[in-house]
């Protein structure tokens, strides 16, 4: 993996270049250790060292065995936690345990507010953003339409299915018009067919918004179908052991699962992951 940062040094320090392909997020030598609860001082090495550049506008997926530190990685990029070692930057500025503007996060668990209607949930994303009421309405209506929630605007999350609640969370992020969208296994709880369709919707919004998408998933086929590049992580402490370029066209959809290349990509991912997944479930490597 070549560092893009070194090749395109920004000449003017005021604003990072918005050319597609420029590094938007970069991680350098990033490690995360947790203090093991209960025992004094003992630490768990959860992640790293990680070096990674996310290009502006790309769709990057991360796959890895369970517990390898995928959510930990996402929280570092989101600014929800601080790296034990190394640097994380977003658009050239370091992230120090502070959520940068322009980043939207959809979590692994359902994060819709059960006391707010769908519409109010989505409007919540706009609380901090100063825009005139008309623009506000436009963004909310847009997000509702894009996520297929228009006729459920006045429903409460409890009246929706799990997949629809996740779509509410995505919509709440969309209204802020993020330049980077972080998705942590957003469809983990859904059945296979629904997941494929939700994948199409994510591709759609990626194309329409032009945002960078960073998707964590445990489903190899999902990664192979959606991403431009796929990072494969080792068992804990998670490191990147492979980065796969898929070479899909930008206007792809779930029908590419029928293509030959799709099978090849999935097979390569599994080759990289098999041994790591065995480690993650506590079995020794049998094959050389």
């Amino acid at each position, binding site marked *: 993996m070549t560092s893009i940062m070194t090749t395109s040094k920004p000449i003017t320090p005021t604003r990072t270049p918005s050319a597609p392909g420029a590094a938007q997020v970069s991680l350098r030598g990033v490690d995360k250790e947790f203090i093991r609860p209960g025992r004094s001082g003992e630490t768990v090495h959860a992640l790293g060292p990680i070096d990674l550049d996310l290009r502006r506008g790309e769709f990057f997926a991360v796959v890895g065995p369970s517990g390898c530190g995928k959510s930990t990685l996402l929280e570092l990029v989101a600014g*929800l936690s601080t790296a034990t070692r190394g640097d994380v930057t977003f658009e050239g500025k370091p992230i120090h345990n502070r959520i940068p503007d322009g980043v939207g996060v959809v979590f692994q*668990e359902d994060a819709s507010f059960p006391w707010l209607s769908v519409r109010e949930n989505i409007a919540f994303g706009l609380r901090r953003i100063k825009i005139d009421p008309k623009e506000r309405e436009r963004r909310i209506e847009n997000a509702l339409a894009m996520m297929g929630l228009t006729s459920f605007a006045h429903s409460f999350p409890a009246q929706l299915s799990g997949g629809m609640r996740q779509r509410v969370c995505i919509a709440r992020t969309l209204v802020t018009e993020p330049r980077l969208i972080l998705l942590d296994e957003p469809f983990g709880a859904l059945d296979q067919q629904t997941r494929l369709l939700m994948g199409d919707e994510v591709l759609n919004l990626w194309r329409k918004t032009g945002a960078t998408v960073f998707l964590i998933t445990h489903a190899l086929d999902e990664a192979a179908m959606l991403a431009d590049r796929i990072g494969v992580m080792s068992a804990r402490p998670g490191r990147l052991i492979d980065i796969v370029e898929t070479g899909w066209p930008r206007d792809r959809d779930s029908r590419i699962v029928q293509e030959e290349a799709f099978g090849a990509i999935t097979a390569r991912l599994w080759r990289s992951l098999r041994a790591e997944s065995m480690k993650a479930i506590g079995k020794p490597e049998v094959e050389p």
Partner: protein
Amino acid sequence: MTPKKRAALWRIALLVGAVGGLEILCLSGHIDRLTMQPPHRIVMDLVALLAGGELNGAIAKTLRNAALAFVIAMVAGVSFAVLLHYLRSLRDMLDPVFATYYAIPMFAFYPLLIVLFGLGDTPQIFIGAMLAVVAVIVNTLNGLDRIPRVLLKTARVNQLSAWDTARLVMLPCAAPHILTGAKLAVAYSLIGIIGAEFIMSTGGMGYEISFAYMNFDNAKMYPLILLILLVSIAINTLLAKWEKILMARRGLS
């Protein structure tokens, strides 16, 4: 008919039966008039009492003081619970106190409170608030403990301040539990105020009941007891309705 509806019908039947039975016992002379008035008489007395207006002052005083005790208990209880939620060690220290709190006979301290606060309304309001506040704290803490972590992360991602996180995420999320605390707080405030008026006071419904009792004035005593019952039930029903709406919204009926 749903089992719930049937239970409600039985409840009403039981109430009608009990009141009707009382009525018959009173009218037939098995319960003499000095002990108790027949129920229909109590209702008539109550109407007359309210229409006459002679006790309006006492009723207003009690309700005002109970409302004050309730509001103090709610504001102090919810704020203190949020504080305790963040201060783990203080909470660990106080948890056993909360667990045994209602074993303390609060009214035993009443004379002390009079020494401290004088003979006015303050010691009564204090007792009402003190009785109610722990129910609010315990229930609010219970609600705060159950806030899913992912909602707090969502608050951070949306760059909410600590104040906005408490106001817009934590408290709404804990609202059903806080409402449970509020229902108890209504009851405890009324008990505190009326009990204190009973012991040592120169006004209020509790004082009037005890005064009527001393003077065998059943035409005043029973209607006042009935009024307290009605007020307490009405407020509780209202809060329960609200609680039901909140729960239904969240798919928990």
